[in-house]
Structure formats: C-alpha cells, structure tokens
C-alpha cells in the first residue's frame, strides 16, 4: 500500500517536472509552430542561473529562482530576436537553427563550469519529507506539483483572457495578413517566446531542486520526454500536455519499479507509438 502511495506521489512529482519542461515547448509549438530544440538549452540556462545566484552570488533560494527565471526569459527573448525572427519565412530553418543552439549552449556551459554535476542549493524548508499514508515523500515533489498547477492556470488564463493567443495562432498561418489588420505581430511572437522561455527556465530551476544538482546536459536529457508529452497531449494544447505529463510520470514510475528490467522509458515510448497510431492527433485531438 505505502509503495503504491509513494509511487503515485513521486510519479505525480515526475509528471509535474515533465509539465514544467513541456509547457513552454507546447506553448511555442502550438502557437508559433516552432519545434524548439533549443528548449533544453533554455532549461539549462535557467538551472545554471539559479545555481549561480544561489551559490556563487550567495542569494537565498527564494531570490535565486526568480533570478534564474528572469535570465532564462532574457535568453529566450534574445533567441527570438536574433534567430527565430529573421527566419519566419523559413519555418524549417527555424527548427534547424534551434538545433544548433541546442548543441552550442550546453557546450558553452560545459566550457565555463565543467562537465560535472554541481550541487544545487536546497533550502531547509524544502529538503525534508512528509509522511503520507505510510510513505515518506520528499517535500519538493509537492512543490513541483504546486508550481506545475499554478503554471497551467497562468498559461490558460493568458491564452483565454488576452488577444495574444489569437494573434499568434493567426500569425503562424499568415503573418502578413495579421499585420494587414493593424497588429504588430512581432511583439506578440516575442512575448509568447519569452513566456515559453520563462516556463522553461522555471522548469530548469525547479528541476535542479528535483535532481539536487545541475549539469550541462540536464535540460537536453529532459527534452525528449518533453517532446513525447507535447505530442501525446495533442501538439500544442497546454492542457493536453498537462494530462499527458501526469500519465507519462505515473506510467514511468510504476513501470520502473514493477518491471524487472525497469522498463519505464520503454513503456513511455510504446505508449506514445500506440497512442499516435490509434489517435494520430494526440489526446486532445488538435491539429496534427
């Protein structure tokens, strides 16, 4: 019993981490049609900035996380301004440029801070455990779940309450026509990219909490699961990504534990393949 509780709680925590990583990716992909391979790099930037602020610069953890998120957002804005924006008429090249950034940024981090994992600052408040129905669950899993929930809420509000979602979706179809309606579409795109980057950086910062350390390849390592989640959720539906994250987290956690060879990631991969073959448009059935 307590094993099941533990697996459920930690599975949810893992799902929350996946959602933190995937939400920005999903937003950018769903609205802007850019499959952002540099998303892992943004995660790493957020994680390293938080780590740097929390250790080298001596800020408290509660200041370091906003700082890291801010740096990640700035990186995303720069990425959009200097790489994505000039390539809007060449969507495939956009993807490829992000592949290049995804290669270069981790290498740069490795060059500056070395390849080895660095211990991540852990505030005392979050390093304990809670006892839930006989299971000892680390507190930070609950923090992740709460952060993911808040992020989901915030993104949904942004999409529903502002015109930006609409503008960007229209802009992907036909940028010129959006400007011909008197809208400065570039600003909207930059904003969406910045929000995606902020989500990624927050994911990176909280991922550091989860792993207890940061290393240059961490973001890229999570990226593949983020892709899986985005596709399963239905290509850019943020809510779909949330549902898929929880599914993937739970399935992976249970399969890792109960199958002898630890088939967690294999089962996720099989899940994806089967889902796409049965429902080619993903869980929520948005455009494929």
């Amino acid at each position, binding site marked *: 019993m307590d094993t099941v509780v533990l697996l459920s709680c930690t599975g949810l925590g893992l799902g929350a981490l996946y959602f933190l990583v995937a939400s920005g990716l999903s937003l950018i992909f769903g609205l802007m049609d850019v499959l952002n391979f540099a998303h892992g790099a943004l995660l790493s930037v957020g994680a390293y900035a938080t780590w740097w602020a929390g250790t080298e610069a001596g800020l408290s953890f509660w200041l370091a996380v906003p700082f890291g998120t801010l740096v990640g957002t700035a990186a995303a804005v720069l990425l959009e301004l200097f790489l994505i924006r000039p390539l809007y008429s060449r969507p495939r*090249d956009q993807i490829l*440029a992000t*592949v290049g950034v995804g290669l*270069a940024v981790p290498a740069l981090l490795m060059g500056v801070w070395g390849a080895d994992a660095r211990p991540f600052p852990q505030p005392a408040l979050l390093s304990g455990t809670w006892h839930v129905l006989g299971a000892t669950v680390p507190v930070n899993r609950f923090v992740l779940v709460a952060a993911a929930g808040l992020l989901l809420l915030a993104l949904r509000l942004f999409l529903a309450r502002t015109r930006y979602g609409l503008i960007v979706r229209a802009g992907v179809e036909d940028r010129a026509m959006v400007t*011909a309606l008197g809208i400065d*579409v570039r600003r909207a795109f930059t904003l969406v990219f910045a929000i995606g980057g902020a989500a990624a950086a927050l994911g990176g910062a909280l991922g550091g909490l989860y792993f207890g350390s940061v290393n240059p390849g961490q973001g890229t390592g999570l990226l593949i699961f983020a892709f899986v989640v985005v596709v399963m959720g239905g290509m850019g539906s943020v809510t779909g990504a949330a549902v898929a994250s929880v599914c993937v987290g739970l399935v992976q956690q249970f399969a890792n534990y109960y199958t002898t060879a630890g088939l967690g990631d294999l089962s996720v991969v099989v899940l994806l393949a089967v889902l*796409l073959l049965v429902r080619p448009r993903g869980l929520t059935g948005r455009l*494929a």
Partner: protein
Amino acid sequence: MHGSLRWWPIALLILLLVIPYSALPVPGLLDGPLGSPGSLQLIALCLLYGALATGYDLLLGRTGLLSFGHALYFATGLYATNLGMLELGLPFAAAAAFGVACAVALALLLGSVSLRVTGIGFSMVTLAFAQAGSILVQRNPGGITGGEEGRSAPAGRLPSALLGIENTANLYWIALAYLVLTLAAVHWAVGSPIGRVWQGIKENERRVEVLGLRPYGYKLVAFVLAGALAAVGGVVYLLLTGGATPQAATSDATLSLLVMVVLGGSGTRWGPLLGGVLYTWAGHRLGDLANSAAVADLPAVLRVPLSQPLFLLGGLFVAVVYLLPGGLARLPARIRAARSVRSARSAGPVGATGARPTGGSPA
C-alpha cells in the same frame, strides 16, 4: 561553362581514387599527408557520413518524410553484423548480409507501422522507435550489446586485409565503394518512375492520390531503401571503427544526419554528400582548432567557448542555416542570382527610398 560542370563528379571520383597513393600534405585541412593512415581514416569517415546523409535525404529531401529515427537502421546494421560474428560465429560476409537483412526487416516492420501517421506524428513515432532501440542497446540485454561500452569486432573473423594500420587504404576503398553505391542507388531511384511519385508526394500528397496512386506503398519503399542503405553504412562503420558502440544508436546520431543534409542542401543531388563530408571533417578537426595554441592564448571570454568543439559546431550550423538558406549546394545559384540582380539594378532606375516589408512573403 556548363559542359565543364557536368564533368566535375568524374573529376572528383578520379581525385578520390588517387588519394591513397598521394603523399601530398594539406596543412590545416588534414593532420598528416593525404595518403597517411590517419588522413585516410578521416576521409573514409567523411565519405561514409556523406553517403549516409545522401541516403537519409531520400526520405527528407526526396519524399518529404522527416524521420527522427534513421540512426536505428544504421545501428541495426552495425550491431547485427557484429553480433552475427560474435554470437552466431558467422564469417564476416555472412554476418554483413545478416546485419543488412535484419535492418531491412526492421525497416519494413516499423516503416509499415509509422507511415500510418503523417506529419509531425510520423517524426515522433520514428523518434519513439529509435529511442526504444537506443535504450535497448544501452540496457545490454543478455549481455550481448555490451551496454554503454559497446563491443569491439572480433579480429579473428574479419578478413586479414581489413586489419591493421597498413590496410587502412582497403577500408578507404570500402567507404568509397559504399559512397558510390549509395549515390548510384539514390540517383537511380530518384530518376525512376517511383522517384517521380516521391516528388509528387513531397509536394502534394493528396494530389498523388487523386491520380490513383496510394502514397503509402511508395513511401514504404523509400523508407526501406533508405534503411537498407543506412544498414550497409553500419557495416562499413563497423569496419572503420572496429566495434559497435551505443553512440551510433542515439537520437543525436539522427539529428547529426539532419544537420548534415541541411548543411549541404536537402533535395539536391550533391548537397547531402557535401554536408556529410563537411560536418564529419569539422567534427574531427574543430577539436584540434579548439585545442590549438592560438585558442589557448586568447582571453577567457573567447577561449572558453572556442575550446568547446560542440559549441563551434553548433555555432557553425546556426550560421549556415542563417546565411545559406537551401544549404551549400544552392550557394552557386544564389550567387548567380545576386549578381544578375546587381547588374539589373545598376542598369535600371534606382528608387529613392526603400522600405522593408514587415511580413514574410505575402500569402
């Protein structure tokens, strides 16, 4: 001018044929003289990847299929051949045939499943299958793949003409033969009736259906053919590196193929080859640049990034995408176009004020 252009592939082939007999030093490009084992090994790897990229472009540039799992078939050829020798005790030739057959069977199976979805769904299903393969190899089932350490090829089962430094030239010939085989296969297929259907599928799949052709079958042929070519590449790779290591199966390997194709120019005749050669060469030589004394003397802001080969590679790639749309292969055409515009401009009237459009191309 065009007459001479038509002959350059043959000239290139002749050049490639004389390389092992040449002791020409090419400082900067290569570490040793042309015919030295180290250079031959590097050139052979370049040719191998040029051929692999050419085969991959059969999917990407010719049929419009963005597969993220091509490395799976390369790795299958590599591992199955090696295991054929190690576990089944087959002689090399039989093991190679076994390896390619395994990859073809796998491509047939997985291709027929993944081609049931289109667009980004197809990309993701292929990625998923390749990821499963990669995990399996790393997991070392039954101890046969050797996990992350891989397994080296059994020297006893390889023909002695392929062993030892003094025989590097023979490996080079094999890589060259593989390249010629791939180029011939791809160009022949593209020029055949099925190649025309592929082009139709790439540009407008529904339109092909309306003509009475079912795209699925033709795409499957492309998928299996590309898979088979990749598998042969895996066999050549086994000979060149003397072992099978899991790096070959990762999604990064497919991503590199993608980068190569784009670098050179997807859908063009020579672009993928060019891209593969350049990427591989840069991957090996940028390390030397990164470690060179010139870099070591730079201030830290420059030295730290420049001493990371992957940073240089990533940066280079971004630059190419940014500055050379359509890849290197389209560069001459672009230069020509730019020149004609300039001459047209200088002849025609010049407007006083210019304004850039805010949107991309008008819809």
